[in-house]
């Protein structure tokens, strides 16, 4: 993941965009994460016959190649489906700017290199209006924690853990195993018995039936 993310921004003036809208449940039956971009915002993007809805923002010729969304508040609430992030990334979205994010969505985004940047409402409104007037290209500089556009520069806050993950893109599993396997093993030795006892083979057979 580069330290700087650049792209065209689209106004996405909706609050409470839930992950059911980002990707409907019917597309969760696919067993892989590649290729989900075509189902992104499926019911907002396409009508019942599968034709693009002219009034949906990403179908607007001006924003078809946008890679940054300027949303409202509470983006990505609801279901934990990581498919929502996979669909955004597969479609080509590199960053979402919003007033706030669903917690699980935010965590999923970090793990897939999708930058989620929280900004105040007034700033978002200004950016959306700017993007509506004419093409808006943004650069999100994760290293310096600033967003640059036109001749302006906006500071933002992002938690350090997320920033590091976004910038290094390292596998969290490899990282944990390399640095903390010993401590995990030690922890398991001192767990209280009710917590440490898992499903024994006899009970397992009864439950599985």
């Amino acid at each position, binding site marked *: 993941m580069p330290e700087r993310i650049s792209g065209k921004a689209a106004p996405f003036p909706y609050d409470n965009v839930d992950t059911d809208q980002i990707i409907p449940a*019917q597309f969760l039956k696919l067993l892989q994460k590649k290729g989900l971009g075509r189902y992104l915002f499926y019911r907002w993007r396409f009508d019942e016959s599968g034709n693009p809805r002219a009034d949906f923002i990403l179908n607007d010729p001006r924003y078809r190649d946008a890679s940054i969304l300027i949303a409202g508040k509470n983006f990505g*609430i609801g279901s934990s489906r*990581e498919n929502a992030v996979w669909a955004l990334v597969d479609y080509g979205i590199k960053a979402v700017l919003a007033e706030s994010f669903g917690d699980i969505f935010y965590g999923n985004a970090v793990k897939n290199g999708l930058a989620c940047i929280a900004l105040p409402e007034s700033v978002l409104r200004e950016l959306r209006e700017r993007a509506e007037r004419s093409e808006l290209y943004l650069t999100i500089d994760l290293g310096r924690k600033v967003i640059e556009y036109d001749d302006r520069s906006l500071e933002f806050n992002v938690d350090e853990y997320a920033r590091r993950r976004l910038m290094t893109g390292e596998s969290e599993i490899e990282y944990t195993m390399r640095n903390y396997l010993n401590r995990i093993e030690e922890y398991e030795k001192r767990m209280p018995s009710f917590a440490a006892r898992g499903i024994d083979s006899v009970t397992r057979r009864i439950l599985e039936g």
Partner: protein
Amino acid sequence: MHLTITDKIWEAHEIAREEGVSLLYIDRHLTHEVTSPVAFSDMREKGYRIRRPDLTLAVMDHNVPTDSKERPTMDELSKQQMDALWKNARDFDVPLLDFYSPYQGIIHVVGPELGFSLPGLTIAAGDSHTSTHGALGALSFGIGTSEVEHVFVTQTLWIKKPKQFRITMNGEPRMGVTPKDLALYMIGQIGTGGAIGHIIEFGGSAISGMGVEGRMTLCNMSIEAGARTAIVEPDEKTFEYLKNAPLAPKDDWDEAVKYWRTLKSDPKAEYDKSISFDVRDVKPMVTWGTNPAMVAPVDGRVPNPAEVKDQQQRAEYERALKYMDLRPGQPITDIKIDYVFIGSCTNARLSDLIEAASFLKGRKISPDVRAFLVPGSEWVRRKAERLGLHEIFMNSGFEWRHSGCSMCIAMNADRVPSGKRAASTSNRNFENRQGPGARTHLVSPLMAAAAAVYGRFVDVTELDLDREVLSLA
């Protein structure tokens, strides 16, 4: 230092901390067929193993057919996803409650009822409604698929400690007002993002007076207010609920209870945010819009968007009314419904079924309504049948189904047809949630039962309930 229950469980499980993010040991991991396949295939590719299969429980729930065990209706993709879990569980030696298991059900119903979920534990699952397990006094987290894989391989999770939000509910709700109504009322008050970044700790006399299953409904719905998760201090009711569960402690029961009794928030503990309300003011609630915060009391009306000041919110309301095909100012009791769904991880436990049956006994549903009763687990189904509840439901005209997520998420064949309107005990009224074009009103099981009989919403606080059925609770 004055600690909350969250602080205590967090501290006991924290293995490391980096940049304010903790590495927590995860004591129990539930997994289902929808959010696990990518994790399993990546593990295969990388040669990973599951660290503690014995602390892991796989359950088929989202796709499972609920019409029949012998001749189930299912599409090819659902079958593939269930087959994949079966193969993954076998290859990675994970205990699996498959479609035919006598204990199959929705993970958030199965975990607590089997005693897989216990007080003081950390619990994770690739499902947002994992907050449900907090009702037992556990710290539970809904996670994405990358994190599912992380828990599989390391039995830990990197997680930022949420801020803490204390919600105190005092008083005794009026007859007919249920935990679901309290949940919807709360979400209406604080909004869909009201608890983002927070764990909600519920307390107060209404919570201690509430049954453990009701607390599950409340914790379950917390995610709809944006909460990272929710928790309730365990008490005697919790211990009673777990006492003979198949996976609860046996020889070390007393020792475990002794520890669980310490899981209380210190009286002087501080919270980042707190609110309290009196539940006596709460009425049965009905959602009118396309997120759970768009909710009104049953004696209220659909709002008029023209009266909303905020431009973006007005647009959102207009869009919701259009999707829901409702008029501004329409009384809630004028809304006619076509489908009733009593089910889901929110409201399909035995107490929910008893609540619905207490009104349905001796009554028939409207001929214009199709009504589904989908128990939260096969065990709940058997327990209900032993009490004769299935006869009450079937005699009234409900379809008595097998367990699964069913019409809450419409991944199996159970769905609300386009343009039809459902009274649903589930958790999400998002556009297209119960099927493409489906219109959802979230309500309690009792409200759903009454709506099935009248074909529209009615105020259940004015109805006669069967005392004998209620006493089964």
